């Protein structure tokens, strides 16, 4: 029997629409391909199109048969963009829909354990971004920053900053996925740009004098609180991996 490969557009709505189609056709694939992944010519493939209506029905079904927490669990894991994550999520979703009681806490099921592992990784990345965002004050009264998270965590971090900085206008831009979130007092909105608009915004010419002065004070602070006699570069890099240094003020010379 040849493999059955299902393809979808890579979005969460697309994934849920695909689940809808699978149940409708009662065909379950061996592999699920997101956008841009090569499809093997010798296997049967099926393609699914995004339907908001179908996606909503599937999401509602998941919540009805389990609960909101489980739906959020699935969404967060999906955002990890890990290879093969869709098949693992399908495994969990089939458990939920097949009505044998959902098994999100079944740590004797290796796939469930693996999903928890990925969830933890996504959670860690969210936590990292809560920590590593460095806002810079621009001359037009905006607080801007760039980040490069390992996973697509932008949809998960906005609320934290909205709760914390409700009276500021701010923008956080993911330079890996080229989109960001913007807040100006009411709702968090997704934004996309062509080119390097945010990078220009936080360049030397565009930030305030106070900004420069607080950046040097922050660097001074970072230097002064270190206990040189106890330097431990390995531990330091474990906590602040090199790939994040690019946007950390205190790691710039």
């Amino acid at each position, binding site marked *: 029997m040849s493999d059955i490969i299902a393809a979808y557009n890579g979005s969460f709505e697309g994934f849920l629409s695909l689940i809808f189609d699978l149940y409708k056709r009662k065909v379950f694939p061996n592999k699920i391909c997101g956008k841009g992944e090569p499809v093997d010519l010798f296997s049967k493939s099926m393609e699914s199109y995004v339907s908001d209506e179908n996606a909503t029905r599937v999401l509602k079904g998941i919540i009805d048969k389990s609960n909101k927490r489980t739906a959020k669990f699935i969404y967060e894991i999906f955002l990890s963009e890990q290879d093969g994550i869709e098949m693992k999520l399908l495994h969990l979703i089939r458990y939920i829909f097949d009505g044998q009681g959902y098994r999100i806490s079944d740590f004797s099921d290796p796939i469930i354990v693996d999903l928890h592992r990925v969830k933890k990784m996504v959670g860690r990345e969210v936590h990292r971004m809560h920590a590593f*965002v*460095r806002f*810079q004050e621009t001359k037009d009264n905006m607080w801007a920053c760039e980040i490069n998270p390992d996973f697509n965590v932008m949809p998960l971090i906005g609320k934290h900053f909205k709760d914390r900085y409700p009276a500021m206008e701010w923008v956080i831009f993911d330079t890996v996925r080229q989109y960001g979130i913007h807040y100006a007092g009411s709702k968090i909105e997704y934004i996309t740009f062509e080119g390097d608009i945010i990078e220009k915004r936080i360049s030397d010419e565009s930030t305030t004098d106070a900004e420069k002065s*607080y950046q040097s004070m922050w660097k001074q602070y970072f230097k002064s*609180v270190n206990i*040189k006699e106890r330097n431990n570069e390995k531990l*330091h890099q*474990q*906590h*602040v991996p090199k790939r994040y240094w690019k946007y950390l003020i205190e790691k710039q010379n």
Partner: protein
Amino acid sequence: MGLQTIEKLAILSDAAKYDVSCASSGSTRKNTKYGLGNSKNMGICHTYTPDGRCVSLLKILLTNFCIFDCAYCVSRKSNDVKRAAFTVDEVVELTINFYKRNYIEGLFLSSGIFKSPDYTMERLVRIAKKLRTEENFNGYIHLKAIPGASEEMLYEAGLYADRLSVNIEMPSEESLKLVAPEKSFKDALEPMAYLKDAIADSKIERRKSKKAPKISPGGQSTQLVIGASPENDKQILELSGDLYTTKKLKRVYYSGYVPISEDSRLPTVDKTPVIRENRLYQADWLMRFYGFSVDEIVNDEHPDLDLEMDPKSAYAMRNLHLFPIDVNTADYHQLLRIPGVGVKSAKKMISGRRFSKLREEHLKKIGVIWKRARFFINCAGLTNTLLAQPINLISNSLKPARLQKKNPNQLTLF
């Protein structure tokens, strides 16, 4: 003539860094509509310094001028260091501006003692009050409670701070007298006792009325300097255990002594092994989260923690008769006693085993440190025979890799 803020920052953060408390956790403070900041129960470390320590708060002294001459302290009167003092506004501005840039979770403010304890405490309180009432700041504030400050002042500090701490510094009265003749245990323990009651009262009041003020909602903590005086780990942990029970402290911090400069009153000590500090924290965790009592961790026969092995492994080696533990039937507290099993993996074991019998591969997936745990458990499909090995083989395997002997049984002839 006056120093620039950045110069003061360099001096007064350098002087504050030996206070190891870094937590921004344990308090939840919601933001207001147009306010700035909030406190999350879990705390956030915004960065880590090259020595591997977390930077969560703007940790500074208001001033390093001090009328005391405590030998362990870099800011002692007789030490020849550059002195500086922030103004109230400078501290407020720094806090707000660092916070807006998401550098920090809040402020940790301590101070040298100038003029009198109350005078100093009043300045610290004024800063916290200004941040809360004028700047609408809802981030985290940790204030030092200055020993000797009046109860009214401590109460007011509690109104604005998330956490208060009084440092005991030396782990015994004798050592304290030796290095800080002006100080006594009583000076630190009295404000702690007062705050314990004030915090407890405020919790009761708030149950009656949500309008009652919160007093230091994140509780209080203290710090002990380790390695500058001769106390053994048993004395240190007994003191911590006592503070956790009688003063309801949230945390005791252990600060390995870094010889700051020569002072003849201090016994010459080698640089305190970082590993000792680490073992003390592990032992502290066992007391707070794993249900261990002090005498299970250290006792007269073993007054010091084993530097080569974590305290739970050391406990297990002294109590081999309690093992192996069957992970499919043992209760939560028994699971926590297994080396290599943490709070999270114990909880996962409890929920996982409702679905099927736990086997070796499940345990590994759950996050159990198999290297250590394998000696001490039974699970489905595995009968433990490792415990029958000679004891030195087991304990050798529990040590960190770099300390393990390759062939512990082989005799060295030459």
